[in-house]
């Protein structure tokens, strides 16, 4: 029957598939915002938890005001200075932490005695809650960017370091022996065998460390600074402006996603040699 087949085709169009994936993802976002709006609006629902209808909005903000805040930031241009500072701190922490992690990871993986000696200290430093170092960094590097970068570096470094260390140690012994038999010098082994082999581990860790570089920058700003998105959030919190706090959080989330996407792009570009799961095309 035509009605049935129309229903079936509608159903197959609505079933989640790669084409309408984005639409479904947008729908989830819209639903969350709608729910947020309905639950916090002082007028829509009678108060069912708080005694005062305005309390929900006071504690959880209101989505339309949060978005309005972000809009106002960009229109007035006020946000660019803060965003720039936070981004620079994040990128610097990310770059320095990754560089140090790769260098020291390779060094310790290739030098068993050094790694045996330093092992307990590395474990200790990794176990230490490193956000605690923020006050020390403020004393050492002042309240400017440097202290935030330092905090971010301590967070990023260990993730990259452990992944590189693991990656270098798991180099296939056969590939290594083969490269040696083909005449590779120790330097060439490093450049052509150890590094590429560790790269897949590095990229896996970069997705984590992008987020942590942000954490370092924002927590640092939050604890003491005069600019940056973390500073904005801290200021707003001081005057109980919960909408601005949420606006800052949303903004940071968006930028962390953009950075993560960039890392993913670079990863796909550099990791073409990795096998991917192949899918057959239905005819």
């Amino acid at each position, binding site marked *: 029957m035509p009605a049935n087949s129309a229903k079936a085709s509608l159903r197959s169009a609505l079933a989640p598939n790669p084409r309408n994936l984005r639409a479904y993802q947008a729908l989830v976002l819209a639903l969350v915002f709608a729910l947020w709006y309905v639950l916090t609006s002082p007028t829509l629902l009678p108060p069912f938890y708080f005694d005062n209808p305005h309390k929900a909005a006071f504690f959880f903000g209101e989505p339309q005001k949060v978005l309005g805040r972000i809009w106002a930031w960009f229109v007035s241009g006020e946000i660019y200075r803060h965003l720039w500072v936070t981004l620079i701190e994040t990128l610097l922490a990310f770059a320095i932490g990754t560089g140090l992690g790769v260098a020291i990871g390779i060094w310790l993986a290739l030098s068993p005695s050094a790694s045996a000696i330093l092992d307990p200290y590395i474990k200790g430093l990794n176990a230490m809650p490193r956000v605690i170092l923020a006050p020390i960094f403020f004393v050492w590097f002042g309240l400017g960017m440097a202290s935030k970068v330092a905090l971010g570096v301590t967070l990023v470094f260990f993730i990259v370091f452990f992944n590189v260390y693991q990656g270098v140690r798991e180099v296939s012994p056969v590939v290594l*022996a*083969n490269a040696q038999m*083909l005449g590779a010098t120790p330097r060439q082994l490093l450049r052509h065998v150890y590094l590429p082999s560790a790269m897949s581990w590095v990229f896996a860790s970069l997705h984590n460390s992008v987020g942590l570089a942000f954490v370092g920058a924002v927590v640092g700003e939050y604890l003491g600074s005069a600019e940056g998105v973390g500073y904005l959030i801290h200021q707003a919190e001081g005057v109980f402006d919960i909408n601005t706090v949420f606006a800052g959080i949303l903004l940071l989330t968006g930028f962390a996603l953009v950075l993560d996407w960039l890392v993913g792009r670079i990863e796909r570009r550099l990791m073409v040699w990795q096998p991917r799961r192949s899918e057959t095309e239905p005819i």
Partner: protein
Amino acid sequence: MSAALSLENITCTFLSREDRAQRYTAVRDTTLAVGEGEFVSVVGPTGCGKSTLLNVAAGLLQPSAGRVLVRGEPLSGLNRRAGYIFQADALMPWRNALENVVAGLEFRRVERREAAAVGERWLRRVGLGGFADRYPHQLSGGMRKRVALAQTLILDPQILLMDEPFSALDVQTRQLMENELLELWSADRKSVLFITHDLEEAISLSDRVVVLSAGPETRPIGEFAIDLPRPRDVSEIRLTPRFIDLHARIWHAMKEEVLKGYARQQRQG
């Protein structure tokens, strides 16, 4: 004239990593020589230390006792005159076929464009002309072995060490590869030390077959000259009476060792 490669009284004893007092002697007092341009196969039951011998010949492993001579000179460090074809996949997965083939030239700082030209030639020679930009995971097992062959032969080593290179391939691919190997070999007659557990493969390829005893403490227990005429076709030569006769004689010498090795594995398993 000194042999291209000779192993003299090689003994290899491994210490157990967990317990220093536990020793395992894989190879005991083995002497083996490969003449200039000679194709020698070493056969023996599984787990008898064949690969250990090859690693010693390559300089990847220091023997506990004995010495390795390359053209009469004692070997120290890696054997720079030798090319090694590994049993497992040894290609660098992050390099495509051409980049893998030219790796050795790159390590020797041959100019890039020149290396690529030679590499292309070698890829065509092993029948992979159109596959230069494929990565190892995009190639079949047989193709990867061809790339590995080209990768090693491009450096023109005087000695070729091969560790069960075709054991992971299916029977048809394997015979094709064996014929290709013979063809490549006959072009410039390198000295070959070929390790295998497959007696038919050993006989059809070699000038000489050395039979090893079951491990531990492996040593050669027999040597057979293979006087089959060349050029050979590995799938056809297996049907000739001379081949069958040689096979019967060598198998007779091997059988007891194979059963011993099998019994030992059963006990351990």
